[in-house]
């Protein structure tokens, strides 16, 4: 889980590398480094800590006039964060940066040690540097090819040699994109990092190796054949990613949700025939014949998957299993099973691996992702894009609500294809859906009210979230947000589960957030915790006459059907955790130990 960047071209490499690294900082940030080539020598700078600190060191050097370089921002998986374990790694005149995991690194390390190589770090990546050095006889491209033949696992790598006129990049199961500018070639782990420099990007495919010159890119596919370079023009702007007046990306992204939801549904619904248009790559016959759905996802996406469980059962008569990707066993797969992978980045390693495993057992597959052309889209039969633009805050907000909406769209499509929903039932659901952006806007307008409640309980030792039915996944998501950004230990429970243990946790200093827009049953759960002295913050439908009698404070949400109230509750709990973290003065956009996109297992 790291970000890598590289540059070759007519400009000074240093400032470009630092700038692109900063744009990748959200991917991980416990150490960083760059290697730049000047006057036929490689200058290496690296340190544990922030990129800005490293940049100061670079500036103190005075510019060495380099035109080529590589850089890395690291999030520790192998080896502690330290100067020693920071990338780039060098071996003789070779310098590399690497993202991914080399599975056979212990074997390779032993082999290379026996050949006399000395290892400076505890990381798997250093193996790659020595291996390339071992094969390097003046042709960098050939050396990288040979070295990679020995590597098992995943990699995105950029390689620099003091005597080579070009850079080499390669990727397998880890993201890497190239950007082509005027007299410059840029490399980064994702597109937004490149956009300030160029809108023309080249996506590398798995197993490809690229030779990068200032004026051209040469791609060689996994068969060793040159591939024509397809340049894709990016139309969205990078600065959609700037904070635009908000103190944090997270708050900005929370406010972007009406727009994001509108984008997710745009052009996909047809009220007049009560159906949803999605490019699933599966015929209605195939959808009709499905017997099960298995959702594979991690973290927040997993919560979106959990919403599918009750929804698909009701709307499409389909039983759903929701699996945490890293715990997935492919033994469960029978024919006529639909696999649904949900991953914001489309690069989540655990989810990709589980989908790959599942595919080998047959079964059709779909993905819900936000990133066009991401790795997951190559694995599946069809993709539903959430289309909400890049998300910079590490805690998922708009991408989550868009995932919920995508799940709802899919449920309606399945329901219609399978004859489980009548056109009129579907039409009513779609009418409610078109109102959702406006309703979310109204929840956002409750921000002051929610801020006051959040600040009142900011010093809580523990938060409990409870919800039933469609709101159970949202209670988990609420607890996750509170943990992620406010660092308050929090638990989400199904309302009915409280009495089976968690009630023991309830004290006067454990506020309970009750998601109460979906049925009356939750009220008895609220009474249960109130009787034990806890304060209850209830999220309830406007004008609900009973809830104020049982809860300590009520946040009223606009009236809608239960499935959409899950989205409204989500927005409210996002604001609650945001304002809690803000009150506590925490680094909301970059919580400790977390990274945006987890590309390691």
């Amino acid at each position, binding site marked *: 889980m790291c970000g890598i960047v590289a540059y070759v071209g007519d400009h000074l490499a240093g400032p470009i590398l630092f700038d692109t690294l900063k744009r990748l900082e959200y991917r991980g940030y416990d150490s960083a480094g760059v290697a730049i080539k000047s006057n036929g020598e490689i200058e290496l700078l690296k340190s544990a800590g922030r990129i800005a600190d490293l940049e100061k060191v670079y500036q103190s050097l005075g510019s060495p006039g380099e035109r080529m370089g590589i850089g890395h921002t690291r999030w520790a998986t192998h080896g502690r964060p330290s100067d020693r374990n920071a990338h780039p790694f060098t071996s003789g005149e070779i310098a590399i940066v690497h993202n991914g995991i080399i599975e056979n690194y212990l074997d390779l390390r032993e082999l290379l040690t026996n050949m006399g190589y000395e290892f400076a770090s505890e990381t798997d990546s250093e193996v790659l540097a020595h291996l390339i050095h071992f094969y390097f006889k003046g042709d960098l491209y050939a050396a990288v090819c040979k070295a990679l033949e020995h590597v098992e696992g995943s990699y995105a790598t950029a390689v620099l040699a003091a005597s080579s006129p070009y850079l080499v990049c390669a990727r397998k199961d880890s993201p890497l994109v190239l950007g082509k500018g005027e007299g410059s070639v840029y490399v980064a782990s994702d597109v937004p990092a490149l956009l300030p420099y160029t809108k023309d990007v080249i996506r590398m495919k798995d197993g490809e190796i690229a030779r990068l010159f200032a004026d051209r890119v040469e791609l060689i596919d996994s068969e060793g054949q040159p591939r024509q370079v397809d340049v894709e023009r990016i139309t969205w702007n990078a600065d959609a990613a700037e904070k635009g007046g908000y103190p944090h990306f997270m708050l900005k992204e929370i*406010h972007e949700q009406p727009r994001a939801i509108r984008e997710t549904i745009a052009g996909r619904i047809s009220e007049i025939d009560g159906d949803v248009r999605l490019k699933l790559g599966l015929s209605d016959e195939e959808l009709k014949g499905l017997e099960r759905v298995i959702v594979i996802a991690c973290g927040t996406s997993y919560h979106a998957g959990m919403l599918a469980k009750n929804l698909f059962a009701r709307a499409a008569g389909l039983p759903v299993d929701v699996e945490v990707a890293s715990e997935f066993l492919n033994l469960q797969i029978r024919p006529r099973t639909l696999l649904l992978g949900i991953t914001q980045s489309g690069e989540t390693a655990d989810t990709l691996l589980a989908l790959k495993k599942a595919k080998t057992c047959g079964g059709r597959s779909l993905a819900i992702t936000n990133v066009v052309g991401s790795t997951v889209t190559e694995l599946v039969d069809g993709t539903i894009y959430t289309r909400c633009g890049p998300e910079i805050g590490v805690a998922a907000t708009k991408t989550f609500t868009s995932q919920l909406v995508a799940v709802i769209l899919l449920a309606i499509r399945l329901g219609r294809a399978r004859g489980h929903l009548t056109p009129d039932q579907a039409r009513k659901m779609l009418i409610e859906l078109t*109102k959702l952006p*406006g309703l979310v806007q109204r929840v956002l307008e409750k921000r002051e009210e929610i801020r006051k409640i959040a600040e009142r309980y900011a010093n809580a030792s523990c938060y409990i979230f409870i919800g039933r039915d469609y709101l159970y996944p949202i209670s988990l998501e609420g607890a996750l947000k509170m943990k992620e950004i406010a660092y308050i230990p929090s638990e989400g429970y199904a309302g009915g589960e409280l009495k089976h243990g968690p009630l023991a946790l309830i004290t006067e200093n454990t506020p309970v957030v009750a998601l109460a827009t979906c049925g009356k049953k939750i009220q008895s759960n609220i009474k249960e915790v109130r009787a034990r002295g806890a304060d209850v913050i209830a999220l309830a439908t406007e004008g609900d006459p009973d809830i104020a009698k049982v809860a300590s404070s009520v946040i009223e949400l606009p009236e809608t059907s239960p499935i959409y109230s899950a989205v409204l509750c989500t927005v409210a709990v996002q604001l609650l955790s945001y304002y809690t973290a803000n009150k506590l003065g925490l680094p909301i956009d970059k919580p400790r130990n977390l990274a945006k996109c987890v590309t390691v297992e």
Partner: protein
Amino acid sequence: MAAGEGRRCRPLTQTRSKVMLPVGNRPFMEHVILALAANGIRDLYIVVGYQKERVMDYFEDGLDFGVNITYLEQNELLGTAHALRKAEAYINEEFLVVNGDNLIDARAIKELISAKGENVILAALRRHSGDYGILMVEQERVKAVIEKPGRPCSGILNTGAYKFSPSIFDDLRHTPISERGSYELTETISQMIADGKEIVPQICKGIWADAIFAWDLFNANSLALTMTDTIISGEVEEGATIKGPVEVGEGSIIRSGSYLVGPISIGEDCDIGPGVTILPSTSVGDSVRIGSHSEVRNSIIMSDARIGSGAIISDSVVGASCTLGDQLIIETGPCVVEMEEAFQRAEFGAILADDVTAGSRVFASAGTVVGTGARIGSGSPIRGWIDRDSRVIS
């Protein structure tokens, strides 16, 4: 300047400030920003306050509008002079001050930029109801700025758009507090005149328009729509008729049997028809649904609104996310409306703020004003002011 609410445009400003009210399918301030960008002005400092999130969510960093925006916050509404001081740290050359809640075109901005003089006021010659400052001009210099006279008059009025040199920041520091308890730019200017500084009036020949009350939006809207060209990015089904300049945004569909006469601007992802009639000077936002056999004329329909079948709407504003049932009839004509404890004569249909829900067969008399989130039961006749979040049961 985008910090104020625009109280007299209530109830439309209950959920957004006046700068975000749409005319010609763009918020007032978008017209302003586009006019500035067309004149090569790139760096914008926008003073926000009331409902700032709406402004920031829409314009973000300005890149989509061809400018770089920095937001400055004015949390206490202490007047325009106070607001301008927020920008002091950023400005060290000649600059413009413009209101975000007026309609202004590129030509007017160009006149202001190219006017000679260090301190220039964009002025307009017209008859008005006394809601603008009046400029006393002698020998092409402003001799006095008279505060809003509060009664109908004609003359040279102050549009609130200025060109200044950075030395004004010294004058701003000495602005006296006004009777209203705020620091007003007009006071600063009066003081500059008293100090012998030259203030040049530039009479505006381009487009400049304002809306005092919500029902003044129709004028600004039709003025803004004069800039419309026919651009059909969405789908127009066979059997639909389109005359005059009509904009149809991406993803929108105009169903068969509809009859559209421009100037009309329709946003993205709208579903119009079948058989809907839309007549001139109508703006329709994004994701709007208009059911079969409805007629809309000289109106502003904001985003996410849903209008049932057989509705008749003219000279009206329908706020964002309103849901209006079948056979809603809005009468139009002269009326008297209470606003800020005074009665105003006007002529319009109805002003519906955001999130208003109406059942079927609701009848609104001319001059009806409905607050945010109100719910009107089926079959109800409505008139006059209906407050925010109220329930009307027939």
